[in-house]
């Protein structure tokens, strides 16, 4: 069995490819691609998973009784009070956690305290914003059998951003942004938010202000102007992310009107469990058996239909470990969780890449138990992977982004009905967001899409627009995106990208774009996630 020779040069999380280096493995949707990089290329790896908390339940109890800048939870609970608990949906973490989900543990402790203090009027709302409604089984997986059986569906349900009676206007925040929120949450004596902070973009004011709002309110910041002023989404400093700034301003208005007790959690980056656990480690640490598993798995996956491949990956839950739990007022709580996030994800990197190579995995926040359609492939490349940086993008301005994905025109019509129209019609009008943003209303006013969002399990009709805007900053920065191995060449073409049969061909095309023969090539070995802390 062939085993690649370990790379010789390595500095912290970065390995440099020399002529003895073996291939590197990139996600290729539900399969893998072995890539042979040019000598001199560098490969950036995520940090090893942080050591998880030994006793998560004790950490939760401690956080609830020692909150930041608020009284302990038990002191806020009064008999006869109206309590709403909002919960992050299954768009995070990815993949889903091995049971018990951290949300189940937190809810169990909250409900225990509620019972002790005589709080009975409790509603739990999944803060989906404009995401799809979670199904009963998905909610059961997240909150556990006991809570599900007792509360679902009457007192445990999904937020409905299109319920004309279920949304109230709270006011106008600094900057003129209208804040509209879930009525039950607004009219409660106390709102508790249970968060999982998967990436630094999550949590904080975004939880309530976005998770429980409606289309009008979310469009205050999910628009082309705001997105063009984000460098990056993963850097919540106000001078770096206009999105974070607007959300924070709106969230401060929420805090003036509502009593919000925030519970935030940070997890490590142990994304792969079971037979895939070797994917958490760099290739140089893989044993012969690990390589054999990869190649055998890939050979088997190649022979399966796409749905079967997806089914296998969806079944493998992630053995994430909880590394921090904090509670209290929104901002001080979020500050501590962000620190934990960056401790896990931050990787110092010096110098931008002229060519960035990255694999696109099978999953994104928007296709849990679903397909990664072309718009979501786009958001994974230009919205997420591109934005995993602080200070400056990992790829230089005008650089070439090479991704690996089979690129099928595969839409889940139950989850993404409006994506079909966006992809086939709206993108044919223009691929430049400011030219198409005025067409949002055409999809938003489609009663079928609204009905499927409210009664079925569809994303809100505006969602594909937001996914496209999400890629705007990346699109404006990157000179060319090249897909290696697109099995349907129409997909890259429709997204404004190029297609290459192999990495060598893609690198040759990149040389043409950059006008130089030996560009600096960097590959990100992700997932697991990392955030490049860039230095010039």
């Amino acid at each position, binding site marked *: 069995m062939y085993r690649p020779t370990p790379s010789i040069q390595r500095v912290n999380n970065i390995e440099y490819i020399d002529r003895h280096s073996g291939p590197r493995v990139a996600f290729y949707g539900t399969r893998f691609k072995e890539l042979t990089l040019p000598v001199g290329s560098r490969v950036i790896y995520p940090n090893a998973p942080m050591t998880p908390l030994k006793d998560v339940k004790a950490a939760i109890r401690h956080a609830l009784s020692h909150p930041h800048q608020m009284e302990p939870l038990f002191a806020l609970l009064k008999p006869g009070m109206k309590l709403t608990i909002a919960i992050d949906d299954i768009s995070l973490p990815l993949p889903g956690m091995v049971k018990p989900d951290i949300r189940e543990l937190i809810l169990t402790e909250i409900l225990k305290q509620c019972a002790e203090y005589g709080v009975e009027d409790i509603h739990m709302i999944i803060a989906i914003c404009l995401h799809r409604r979670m199904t009963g089984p998905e909610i059961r997986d997240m909150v556990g059998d006991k809570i599900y059986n007792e509360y679902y569906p009457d007192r445990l349900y999904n937020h409905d951003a299109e319920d004309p009676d279920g949304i109230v206007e709270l006011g106008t925040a600094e900057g003129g942004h209208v804040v509209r929120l879930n009525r039950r949450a607004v009219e409660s004596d106390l709102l508790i938010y249970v968060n999982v902070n998967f990436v630094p973009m999550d949590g904080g004011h975004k939880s309530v202000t976005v998770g429980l709002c409606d289309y009008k309110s979310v469009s205050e910041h999910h628009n082309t102007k705001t997105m063009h002023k984000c460098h990056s989404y993963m850097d919540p400093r106000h001078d770096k992310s206009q999105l974070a700034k607007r959300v924070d301003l709106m969230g401060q208005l929420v805090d003036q009107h509502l009593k919000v007790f925030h519970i935030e959690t940070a997890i490590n980056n142990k994304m792969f469990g079971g037979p895939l656990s070797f994917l958490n480690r760099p290739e140089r640490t893989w044993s012969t058996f690990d390589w054999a598993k990869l190649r055998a798995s890939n050979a088997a996956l190649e022979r399966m239909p796409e749905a079967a491949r997806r089914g296998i990956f969806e079944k493998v839950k992630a053995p994430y470990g909880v590394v921090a739990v904090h509670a209290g007022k929104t901002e001080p709580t979020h500050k501590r969780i962000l620190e934990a996030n960056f401790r896990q994800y931050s990787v110092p990197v010096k110098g931008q890449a002229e060519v960035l190579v990255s694999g696109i995995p099978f999953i994104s926040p928007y296709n849990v138990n679903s397909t990664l359609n072309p718009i979501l492939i786009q958001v994974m490349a230009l919205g997420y992977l591109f934005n995993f940086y602080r200070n400056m993008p990992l790829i230089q301005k005008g650089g070439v982004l090479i991704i690996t994905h089979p690129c099928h025109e595969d839409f889940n*019509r139950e989850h993404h009905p409006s994506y*079909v129209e966006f992809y086939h019609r709206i993108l044919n009008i223009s691929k430049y967001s400011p030219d198409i943003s005025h067409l949002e209303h055409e999809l938003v*006013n489609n*009663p*079928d*899409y609204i009905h499927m969002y409210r*009664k*079925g399990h569809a994303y809100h009709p505006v969602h594909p627009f937001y996914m496209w805007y999400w890629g705007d900053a990346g699109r404006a920065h990157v000179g060319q995106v090249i897909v290696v191995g697109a099995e349907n060449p129409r997909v890259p073409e429709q997204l404004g990208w190029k297609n290459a049969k192999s990495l060598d061909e893609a690198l040759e095309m990149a040389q043409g774009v950059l006008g130089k023969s030996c560009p600096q090539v960097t590959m990100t070995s992700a997932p697991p996630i990392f955030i490049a802390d860039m230095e010039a």
Partner: protein
Amino acid sequence: MSAQQEQKQTQQEGQDSNSTKVVDHSTSARRAAFYDVDGTIISSNVLHPYAYYAASAPTISGKLGRLFKLGASLPIYALAERKGRKLFNDMFYMNYKGLSEDRLYILGQEIFDNLLKSKIYSEMQALIRESQAQGVKQVLITGNIDTVIAPLADYLGVDDWVANRLEFDQDGLATGNLLPPIFAGPEKAYWLRSYAKEHNINLDESHAYADSASDIPLLCTVGYPVAVNPDSRLKATADAHNWPIINTKSI
């Protein structure tokens, strides 16, 4: 005058034009939503109303005779349906032969109250309301008969509707034939295009909802086709064309 009224005037001369009530509330609608009825808006099919009529026959022998004949013919109808909706209609509506027009209309409201009202998919009723709120003209287009559909259309508050009509002889008894046009398969699409032209409706921006492969021509006529509780052949078509699917049974 609506399409339904014009049809009645031109093709059913001498018959009572009040028998199919047409309400056109929306005069400026540019978009329209066209709904098949059986299986799409209600969890029922054309057999159920007839079974009710048969069971309401004034004599015991009449009841038993009609119900027995219906039961015995079900396999034949299933085969006819597979061959095409037109053949099915030709065979099935022969059952109505001999039923009086008055009785059909009187029992129409009763059938709605006792049978159909409880079979309306609440999700589809909500969709009709949401669609109406968007200013979309609501139109039912069905292969069921007008006596059954009139109370349903009234209840749903749709803007317009069209249904099949039985032919009656000089004594006011059904002949078992349907008056043309017979709304099945491509005929629905043909009617829809004429209706759109007459009412200045932009079909590219209009919606259609159906549950059966026989309605694929109808769905193909509009810009926004939706398969509702689709049968296997319609589902395959919806899958191939990425049409949205609404499964009211799973909601």
